[in-house]
């Protein structure tokens, strides 16, 4: 707009275009249509931040009270909060940001949602259509920028198609493999008027119809392989969670029916109760010894809703070399992407599990009990190594101990955990137990520091009564610390549990293991006083240095009604084990500091991340 005023040609264009289309009596503005469409989609909460281009939408929001708007303090946090909301409820998270910097700030969150398959609809403001391409004030090529980091995006150029676009966006975001969808909304489209027509639900998309029902023949083949396995292992991931809580119940049922061991990916924690004897813990780079060795030695690998990510496979040509691999995934492009599988099946995890259980019950297959007994005996031997063991002394708190105690105090409460990214994240995955799906929110694919706190805010909005804890590191938490203001505004009793080792711990660990202990820039110099920081934002700050006082601190944290930051000073030098060094195979795990000297990381491994 500033440019338009300065430039006579543009000013003329503006004046000409500024004549808003003649409104019909019953017609509604684009902004009102948008809000109506959101309500039709049963949206209850929008996470956002206002700005010039979206003022009409904020005006519409002001005039109604069905949609609740949560004002964040940075657009990236709006997307993470919506992710937390979506992951803990199974609904689509909705974000509203302005044009230009509002949209570009949202990009990290969108990429995060894309990598972790989280359904998000992100509404971005845009300069009026006649100014698009003119380098107008707060203009960015939002559809161009977000094309590779969304599942799909739209630029709405005509108010007539606005409601339809919104409904299509929700359909695309939640169907198939979920993901983020951006709708870019020029300001004139929001001001123009059009009649409202309620949509025909469900929306029929002309080209996007993901396959959810797996091929019956392939399910039969899968069952055959599963039933005849001698050393089987289930390997399940976020796809089971995305399929809905029923899929996790079905998975638990199938695993119990077969009596086979199961391991979860970072994203899949909670799909199978962690306290169950058949659970081997998480697998992958910081997974358990038993889970990774089971993957290496198994003869049938049953992957449901996981994607053979490089954190899971380690060295590709030595990944589970003796197994027949079944891979069930709703996204056909995940099949045979990293690892060649013997039986690729496109379909929804829940549907596939339902079919498998039905068939299992109908056929009542006899599994090889003798072989399975031997397999479990082998697994128990690995388990007996107790790969997550640590030694807690009297002086310094071990981060593992802090999480053990945290879990002890929350396990009988209705709780949700989010994390930032780094060592604390891996320890949380190892030491907190997840009995149900949708209780664990962490940035898996993108590894976004600063994810956990805003995500916790989103979770708390969805579950006001629950205990929501962001397990954080002192470096990560600084990346979205401004959201303390949001927590204060909405009186959200989110707990931030900082494992403070004064280092970017995972960076420090890699520098120790791979770069000769040259701790380049990984020391957290000039940290704030987190207790005073909490105080400044109207939250409560607690600090704990001594192992003996940890229990009381955690109890106090839980008892406080409002937001709390707990600054737990932990061992600065502790490393996260077990660890498969990058480029190594599953059997080549470092179990503790003693293992390190014996096996230096290879040159090839150093190139990998």
């Amino acid at each position, binding site marked *: 707009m500033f440019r338009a005023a300065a430039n006579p040609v543009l000013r003329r264009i503006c004046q000409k275009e500024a004549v808003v289309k003649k409104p019909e009596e019953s017609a509604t503005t684009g902004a009102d249509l948008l809000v109506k469409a959101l309500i039709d989609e049963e949206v209850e909460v929008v996470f956002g931040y206002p700005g010039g281009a979206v003022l009409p939408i904020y005006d519409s929001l002001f005039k109604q009270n069905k949609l609740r708007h949560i004002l964040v303090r940075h657009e990236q946090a709006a997307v993470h909060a919506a992710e937390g909301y979506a992951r803990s409820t199974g609904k689509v998270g909705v974000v509203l940001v302005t044009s230009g910097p509002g949209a570009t700030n949202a990009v990290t969150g969108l990429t995060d949602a894309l990598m972790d398959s989280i359904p998000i609809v992100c509404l971005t403001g845009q300069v009026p259509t006649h100014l698009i391409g003119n380098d107008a004030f707060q203009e960015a090529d939002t*559809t161009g920028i977000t*094309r590779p980091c969304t599942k799909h995006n739209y*630029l709405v150029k005509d108010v007539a198609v606005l409601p339809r676009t919104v409904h299509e966006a929700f359909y*695309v975001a939640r169907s198939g493999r979920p993901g983020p969808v951006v709708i870019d909304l020029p300001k004139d489209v929001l001001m123009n008027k059009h009649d409202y027509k309620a949509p025909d639900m469900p929306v029929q998309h*002309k*080209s*996007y119809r993901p396959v959810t029902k797996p091929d019956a023949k392939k399910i039969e083949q899968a069952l055959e392989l599963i039933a005849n396995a001698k050393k089987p292992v289930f390997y399940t991931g976020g796809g089971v969670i995305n399929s809905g809580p029923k899929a996790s119940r079905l998975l638990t049922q199938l695993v119990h029916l077969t009596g086979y061991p199961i391991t979860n990916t970072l994203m899949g924690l909670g799909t199978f109760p962690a306290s169950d004897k058949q659970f081997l813990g998480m697998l992958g780079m910081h997974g358990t010894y038993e889970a990774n060795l089971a993957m290496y030695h198994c003869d049938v690998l049953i992957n449901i809703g996981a994607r053979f990510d490089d954190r899971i496979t380690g060295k590709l040509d030595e990944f589970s070399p003796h197994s027949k691999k079944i891979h069930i995934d709703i996204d056909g492009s995940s099949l045979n*992407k990293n690892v060649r599988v013997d039986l690729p099946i496109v379909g929804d995890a829940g549907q596939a599990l339902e079919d498998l259980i039905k068939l299992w019950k109908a056929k009542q297959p006899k599994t090889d009990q003798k072989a399975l007994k031997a397999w479990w005996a082998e697994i128990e031997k690995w388990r007996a190594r107790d790969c997550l063991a640590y030694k807690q002394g009297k002086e310094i708190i071990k981060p593992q101990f802090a999480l053990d105690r945290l879990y002890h105090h929350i396990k009988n409460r209705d709780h949700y955990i989010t994390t930032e990214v780094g060592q604390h994240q891996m320890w949380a995955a190892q030491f907190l137990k997840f009995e149900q799906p949708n209780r664990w929110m962490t940035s898996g694919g993108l590894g976004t520091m600063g994810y956990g706190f805003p995500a916790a805010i989103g979770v708390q909005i969805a579950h006001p009564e629950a205990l929501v804890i962001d397990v954080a590191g002192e470096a990560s938490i600084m990346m979205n610390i401004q959201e303390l203001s949001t927590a204060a505004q909405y009186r959200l009793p989110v707990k931030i549990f900082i494992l403070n080792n004064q280092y970017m711990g995972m960076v420090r660990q890699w520098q120790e293991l791979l770069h000769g202990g040259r701790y380049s820039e990984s020391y957290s110099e000039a940290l704030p006083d987190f207790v005073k920081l909490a105080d400044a934002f109207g939250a409560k700050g607690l600090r704990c240095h001594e192992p003996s006082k940890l229990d009381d601190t955690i109890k106090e944290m839980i008892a406080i009604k409002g937001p709390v930051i707990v600054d737990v000073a932990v061992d600065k030098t502790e490393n996260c084990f077990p660890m498969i060094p990058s480029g190594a195979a599953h059997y080549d795990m470092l179990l503790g500091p003693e293992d390190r000297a014996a096996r230096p990381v290879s040159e090839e491994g150093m190139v990998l991340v």
Partner: protein
Amino acid sequence: MEVASSHTISVLVDNEPGILARVVGLFSGRGYNIESLTVALTDVKENLSRITIVTAGTPMVVEQIKAQLDRLVPVHKVHDLTLEGPHIERELALVKVKGTGEKRVEALRLADVFRAKVIDAKTDSFVFEVTGTSDKVRTFVELMSSLGLVDVGRTGTVAMTRGGEAF
């Protein structure tokens, strides 16, 4: 070791703004090759465009390319013509040649052999239109290079299955 080979992929997409950017972005973002790419509106009623891409990769990579294309929301159909039975491929090129005397005569003679049409003529130049497989077009251009070649414009490959079936 899997060997890389050339594949012609036909993609039917909604004719909407940004669709080409989506397809091209997918190829560059994931590190796939594009040997040639053609796109035009082919179904006015349904507003669909056909994109024909010639790409090269190992069987696993080509399978990935198809799966990734299929995943794009505005994509209706993806077919690997190279794998899915007999098909025909054609390319068109405009070739400008400048010269006089024996070279000019020779260019015209070769054009005749290749069934290239003269679509512009001046006393010292021709523009030829040549159609055929990419190999034929390439050969023609190579021959012209010693006869006063000035400019070449190529469409890239378009392709279709043989027989009466549509897809």
